[in-house]
């Protein structure tokens, strides 16, 4: 079911992704607590978010490769206002652009950290939040050590 934005705005339901034919292996990986992204088998480019063609060489051939789960904060913002009612008790939250060591970027949350300690360049590692039977969200926390 596609998300109904009116419903998101008003309900306490959490906005969650809708896996599709390209993205299902990504979400399946997340359910196994593995960060699995498409890797082009022609040129080796890793891509996120899941898409039918390689952004570097345009090939459609790819494998689903497990990432290290390690990266750094390329940029971040501390969100003080709730996007939807569900977030009302979650803010302030850290929304960040994470650059994985494999070279791709993703939007995610950085958790298990004092808000004042988040900084650009901070090393982070993936963690997983099991939300429903179908959906697990990859998130990040400060890298150990």
């Amino acid at each position, binding site marked *: 079911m*596609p*998300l109904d*934005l*009116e419903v*998101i*705005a*008003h309900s306490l339901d*959490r*906005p*969650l*992704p*809708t*896996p599709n034919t390209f*993205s299902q292996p990504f979400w399946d990986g997340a359910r196994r607590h593995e960060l699995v992204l498409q890797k082009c088998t022609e040129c080796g480019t890793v891509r*996120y*978010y899941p898409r039918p063609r390689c952004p570097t060489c345009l090939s459609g051939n790819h494998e689903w490769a497990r990432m290290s789960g390690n990266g750094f904060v*390329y*940029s*971040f*913002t*501390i*969100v*003080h*206002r*709730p*996007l*939807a*009612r569900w*977030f*009302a008790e*979650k*803010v302030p*939250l850290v*929304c*960040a*652009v994470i650059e994985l060591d494999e070279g791709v*970027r*993703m*939007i*995610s*949350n950085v958790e298990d950290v004092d808000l004042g300690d988040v900084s*650009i360049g901070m090393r982070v590692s993936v963690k997983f939040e099991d939300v429903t039977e179908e959906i697990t*969200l990859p*998130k990040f926390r400060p890298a150990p050590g």
Partner: protein
Amino acid sequence: MEVAIAGVGEARVGRDAGCTSWELHVEAIEAALADAGLSISDVDGLISCPSTIDDHARHHVLLAEQLGMPLKRYTDSSRVGGASSTSAVRDAVCAIQAGMAEVIVISSADSQRSSVGRADTPVIKMAHYHSLDYEIPYGPLIISLYALIAQRWMHEYNWTPEQIAEVAVSQRYNASLHPNAQVRDLISVEDVVTSKPITDPLRLLNCSLISDGGAAMVVTSAERARSLKKPPVYVHGMGNAYSYYFCWNLPDYTDYLRMLVSISADAAFAQAGIDRKDVDLAMVGDPADICTLIGIEGMRFAPPGESVDFVQGGTLRVGGGLPTNTHGGCLSYAHPGAPGQHLHLIEAVRQLRGECGERQVRDAKFAAVHGNAGVLTSHCTLILGNESR
């Protein structure tokens, strides 16, 4: 063939229009036609910039029907977010030059503020333009995506909140000179840096307003425009650059992003055949104040990383070195979504006609208008002037 903007109009711009976006579209178009001294029967082309509240697969056709315009030669919708209106000017110019229409109206309208009043978070309406799978589950406001860019620029160039605040302070000064601006009270740097935190590093006064309103303009051949009621404003140059859909796919947030603005601006300046120093005023799309700064650098009015220095001392104010967003922009005049940057175009036209009273830029001959959209991923620059070339 030279093409010109012959009429501009606004409809109920501000806090609460009290009507649907369809009425705003119609009223804005009627106002623009009246400004030009034309009627709907003179129009053979329509480009609509669809509303987020009442979108439709064939928005332009539905709007034409509501306008009482059953037969037209050219219609389309411009779907480039905040840059829809600037892109639509390009489309209208090309269509007129190709002989596909003679008089094209472009309209933008949205009732984002009032229509979403029942939702606890107005920005939710815009969320469907972003990724419901890879962004929204993590809770960013739309303006948070701009905050991610602001944070990176501040990190790379060591910019302080106090330096950046000058943009909002200057644009508010300009808005104070406009009788219809949504907010007109002067603000200080201190006000900006202590305003309510929204999404760090952006505070309330670093962000655009949320408004209702409609905006429209009439585009026709220069020859036809010269026979109409108002002095023509000529489209001298146009340039575009479209990149990724999601800003986090940009290779980097500084050099690459600025380059996108430059690609669009360089093309527009080259076509117009003028230099940066010839520009009397600039209009820059400003969903957040950082966008004004990036636009100024991308258009090469200031060297990389130095726009915050450039704007100090009132450069952007009416009377300053490069009066920018002279109506107040989306930060202070109004921001009904996509129509926000249409209002920038209208202000440029009014400045070039010398209609701006207290906020008039003296002897204004050339305006550089930069439209951006999709968290600074789509760019369109126009060079407008009041003399035929």
